[in-house]
């Protein structure tokens, strides 16, 4: 057993995945199972006057049709613990693709034929697609309470960190409004007064989709009064509790299984409409029901990363120290909140943490309803969006001041132990090491001292960099891990987290084996089944290695004590001086050094009726923040005739504490980097924003993800750091590398050409536009 990942070949899900026996929810086939197809709104905003499903019902093979008239009033949208916005089905449809009716039939084809037989009389309502346009008080109202989302309770007080939060209107070009989120520290206006230089910049980022390989869906089946759901979800326990609520059942009467997911990227959190619809159809028809989204539905009828309009204002002294940082985000929320508005909140808040040394800062986050698909959390969770704007502005600032962009970051970014206000602190920071080592690797001295200068050729090269922050895995405590000794002598590790594709079970088992002091070969894993696993919060927010891992380590230490105690009891001696070794308990002190196998201990525990079982919960001290940091350095070559950008080199350094399983960690980092490149240069959902709100690239043929031919070699590495809050010194890493990529590329383009690209995706047209400004 080592900590350097030499056991990484020992993947918990490896054999099952490579042989095809791993159970994905879509693999579930049950006798008599019905299939669902959906009638979706062709209008961006309309009220259903009447709906006639008689012909659909009459079609042979159709078992049920449901409209808003047939479903209980139950909110599936969730924000800050409060349900809002989205009911299971509604009379008003708010975007092209909104659910109008669902059909359950013997197969998808019959269901689709039935969908085509439904006739709907719509009263078409005025619609608005652009978030800035929707800010205007005279704009069509997407939701009754106005177009600026209100988040109950979270704009006052600050449960995560010490940044002061205020609840008051701010001035905008459309009037005075209370933002969805308003964070303020110090006196930003006074900070601008103190500045030697003030820059103001605007940016726009396009909405993007997580693009999981596997679209969403579930199979729901009732066994009497018990509901069983195989779901492609990141949060099986949340789905369980909400479905139990819907059917007014005790939670133990609902079982949710989510062993393997074909990706998630944060977009498979929380309840969505398909799960309650499938469960209701199954209840009404008395048959198992499978409801799976098509690729087009997955892209357009779930949620996207926010499209945002940013305004950034920064003040600095001549020496580069920031005196004021003002950020405004007008984020396109789409038609309603599915998951929550946290990405906007967390991004604003954490950038204030990242630049905590700036005494005066403000973040105004407006989550604005429009008649587009919903927006929510997607890998990076708000931070790639805001950091694109902030890191681009700071790059401009560094050149305006004639200060090395790296120096500017070193001077202004947060240090370990620094006060964040209200006595909150940051636990560990090694961003300085990241900056120094990454700059060294790419040879930062090669950058153009003056952007775009001294390169007469059409192909210009340049270097750029950006820094990033991410939740370091959080200090969640709402999770448990459990270890059992089976009568056969196997150690069974139960966690509730689904395998989203990151082999988190392998990492959990590695941590258990290390805490126990035995090889992983004695440990079996069981996960993501609400019937057999202890409670868990789900797999999200890069939190599994840290928060979940702390639970697993705690459970393992407890389990080890119990095992040693049982062996000591059998030998009639104290557990002191015993250790786990070679699949059993070993005496270290006696001359004859006795040994008992786990099988013997398992049988004994079983005989006694006193199972060896340990449950661990993570514990973290209050008022300490756990954050990961990263920097990315990029070298590009820009064809200034065409705006085409080629990435020549890409180096990312991570401050993620100790790597538990570096090969898996770096694999995920490479993938996050590629997704970051894709965000920066390829992806952007486009809609007809004038007429109908129809998607113009709503399929993988037109929504262009990069191919392997488009990806450069990704260099990434972990710097030496240790996180004291985690028993093994680790911090979260799954999303982090996504966050600095887009601004690093934009800054490299600037260094190469002297042209600032202010929008994503940075397509050739955008690069040319920037050059002509």
């Amino acid at each position, binding site marked *: 057993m080592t900590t350097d990942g030499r056991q990484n070949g020992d993947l918990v899900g490896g054999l099952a995945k490579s042989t095809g026996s791993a159970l994905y929810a879509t693999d579930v086939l049950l006798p008599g199972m019905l299939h669902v197809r959906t009638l979706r709104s062709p209008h961006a905003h309309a009220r259903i006057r009447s709906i006639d499903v008689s012909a659909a019902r009459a079609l042979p093979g159709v078992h049920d049709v449901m409209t808003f008239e047939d479903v209980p009033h139950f909110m599936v949208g969730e924000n800050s613990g409060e349900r809002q916005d989205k009911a299971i089905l509604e009379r008003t449809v708010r975007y092209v693709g909104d659910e109008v009716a669902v059909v359950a039939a013997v197969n998808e084809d019959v269901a689709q034929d039935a969908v085509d037989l439904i006739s709907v009389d719509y009263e078409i309502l005025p619609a608005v697609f652009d978030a800035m346009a929707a800010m205007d008080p005279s704009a069509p109202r997407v939701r009754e309470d106005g177009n600026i989302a209100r988040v109950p309770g979270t704009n006052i007080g600050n449960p995560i960190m010490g940044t002061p939060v205020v609840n008051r209107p701010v001035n905008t070009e459309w009037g005075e409004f209370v933002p969805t989120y308003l964070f303020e520290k110090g006196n930003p206006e006074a900070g601008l007064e103190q500045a030697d230089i003030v820059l103001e910049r605007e940016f726009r980022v396009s909405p993007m989709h997580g693009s999981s390989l596997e679209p969403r869906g579930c199979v729901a089946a009732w066994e009497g009064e018990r509901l069983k759901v195989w779901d492609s979800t990141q949060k099986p326990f949340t789905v369980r509790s909400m479905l139990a609520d819907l059917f007014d059942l005790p939670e133990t009467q609902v079982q949710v299984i989510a062993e393997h997911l074909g990706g998630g990227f944060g977009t498979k959190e929380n309840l969505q409409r398909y799960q309650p619809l499938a469960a209701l159809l199954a209840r009404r028809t008395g048959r198992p029901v499978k409801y799976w989204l098509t690729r087009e539905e997955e892209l357009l009828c779930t949620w996207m990363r926010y499209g945002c309009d940013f305004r950034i204002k920064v003040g600095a002294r001549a020496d580069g120290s920031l005196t004021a940082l003002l950020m405004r985000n007008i984020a396109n929320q789409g038609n309603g909140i599915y998951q929550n508005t946290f990405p906007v909140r967390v991004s604003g808040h954490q950038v204030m943490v990242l630049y905590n040394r700036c005494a005066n800062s403000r973040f105004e986050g407006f989550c604005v309803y429009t008649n587009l698909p919903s927006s929510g959390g997607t890998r990076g969770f708000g931070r790639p969006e805001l950091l694109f704007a902030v890191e681009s502005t700071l790059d401009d600032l560094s050149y305006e001041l004639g200060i090395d962009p790296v120096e500017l970051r070193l001077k202004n970014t947060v240090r370990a132990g620094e006060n964040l206000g209200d006595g909150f602190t940051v636990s560990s920071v090694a961003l300085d090491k990241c900056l120094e080592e990454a700059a060294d690797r790419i040879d930062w001295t090669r950058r153009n001292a003056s952007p775009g200068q001294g390169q007469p050729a059409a192909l210009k090269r340049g270097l750029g960099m950006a820094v990033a922050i991410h939740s370091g895995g959080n200090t969640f405590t709402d999770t448990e891990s459990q270890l059992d000794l089976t009568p056969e002598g196997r150690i069974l590790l139960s966690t509730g987290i689904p395998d989203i594709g990151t082999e988190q079970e392998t990492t959990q088992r590695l941590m258990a084996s290390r805490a126990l002091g035995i090889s992983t070969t004695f440990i079996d894993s069981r996960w993501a089944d609400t019937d057999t696993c202890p409670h868990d919060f789900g797999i999200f927010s890069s939190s599994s290695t840290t928060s979940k891992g702390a639970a697993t380590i705690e459970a393992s230490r407890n389990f080890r004590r119990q095992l040693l105690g049982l062996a000591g009891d059998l030998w009639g001696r104290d557990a002191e001086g015993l250790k786990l070794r070679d699949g059993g308990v070993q005496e270290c002190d006696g001359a004859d050094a006795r040994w008992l196998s786990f099988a013997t201990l398992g049988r004994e525990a079983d005989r006694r009726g006193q199972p060896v079982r340990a449950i661990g919960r993570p514990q973290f001290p209050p008022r300490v923040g756990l954050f990961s940091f990263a920097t990315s350095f990029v070298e590009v070559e820009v064809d200034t005739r065409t705006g085409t950008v080629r990435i020549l080199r890409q180096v990312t350094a991570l401050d993620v504490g100790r790597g538990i399983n570096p090969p898996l960690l770096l694999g995920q980092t490479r993938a996050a980097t590629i997704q970051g490149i894709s965000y920066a240069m390829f992806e952007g959902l486009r809609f007809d924003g004038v007429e109908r709100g129809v998607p113009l690239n709503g399929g993988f043929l037109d929504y262009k993800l990069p191919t392997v031919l488009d990806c450069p070699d990704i260099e990434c590495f972990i710097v030496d750091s240790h996180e004291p809050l985690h028993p093994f010194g680790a911090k979260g890493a799954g999303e982090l590398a996504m966050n600095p990529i887009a601004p690093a590329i934009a800054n490299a383009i600037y260094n190469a050409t002297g042209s600032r690209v202010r929008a994503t995706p940075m397509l*050739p047209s955008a690069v040319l536009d920037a050059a002509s400004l």
Partner: protein
Amino acid sequence: MRLRCDEETIMQNIVVIHPESLEDAVQTAHEHGSEAKFYAGGQDLMYRLKRRIASNPKYLIHLPSLPDLSYISFDDVNGLRIGPLTTITALAQSEAVRTHYPALAEAAEAIASPQIRNVGTVAGNLCQQVWCPYLLEDYACSMNGGKYCPAAVGDNSGYHAIFRQKKCVAVHPSDLAPALLAMEAEVTVLGHTGKRMLSMEDLLPGIARVGEELKVNGLRTDEVLFEIQLPPPVPESRQTYRKSRSRQSWDFATVSVAAVLQLDGTDCTYARIVLGGVAAQPVRVHAAEAFLTSHRLDVANLIQAADLALESARPLALNAYKVDLAKALVQDTLEALAVGE
């Protein structure tokens, strides 16, 4: 929004006809008129059928089961003959094509993805439909029963024309067509009344609406491509096909260029340059050709030739970048040919 993807339903409603011969196929097509469509590789057709773009046909006339429609033959006197059902992969890998018509092989290799090239055919590539998101999303555009072109005033940043077009601003997506036009290819088509020869210009005359049908090629409803013929390569000439796209595989051309140059030292004695992805048909740029054959091939002149190639371009609101892209591509292509890369 078209959010469905269920082949089976569609197949239930469509009769697949297996003809005895190509003559039988066109006779059948003639009998069913616009209710029938030919199926070659299915790579363009099936996607449109699944998404129910335009009205689905009642009959599919299945050509792959017919013998002897897939071949490539070459001789020095008559040049190259390509059977209509030859796959793109076969074309790209053909030794004769790679040796004598390398630009055609390059164009074939640049098409879509390996999977699509393995199944897609030469005839299908030439006869495919245009790719405008408004048309695909069933807007009532001027080609679909409406009065105006939403792409002309809306999002025209993608597969839209940079040369002036009336009614519809979509571009022809074929990679093979510009290369074939640059090589002076001709096609023989077969209809129920017999064969006729078409130039590439006649085969791809632009986009028009004829009755309920959107016409993107010069074939009559009952006609199929019978054979593609290329004259022997211009002696001592060099040729290449270059494609600019938003990603390096599985993508249509944003712009492309096919060029054939015959060089005598630094003089150009023959030039044929064709742009793809810029209009409803491949665009031969005569002005640039004439300029090249009357000027020395130095860098300044190549740049001027590239400028001339795009001289008459009139981009739409969001695709001016394609003019720059095309200019640079023409310049780079000509430079590469001039130095013999």
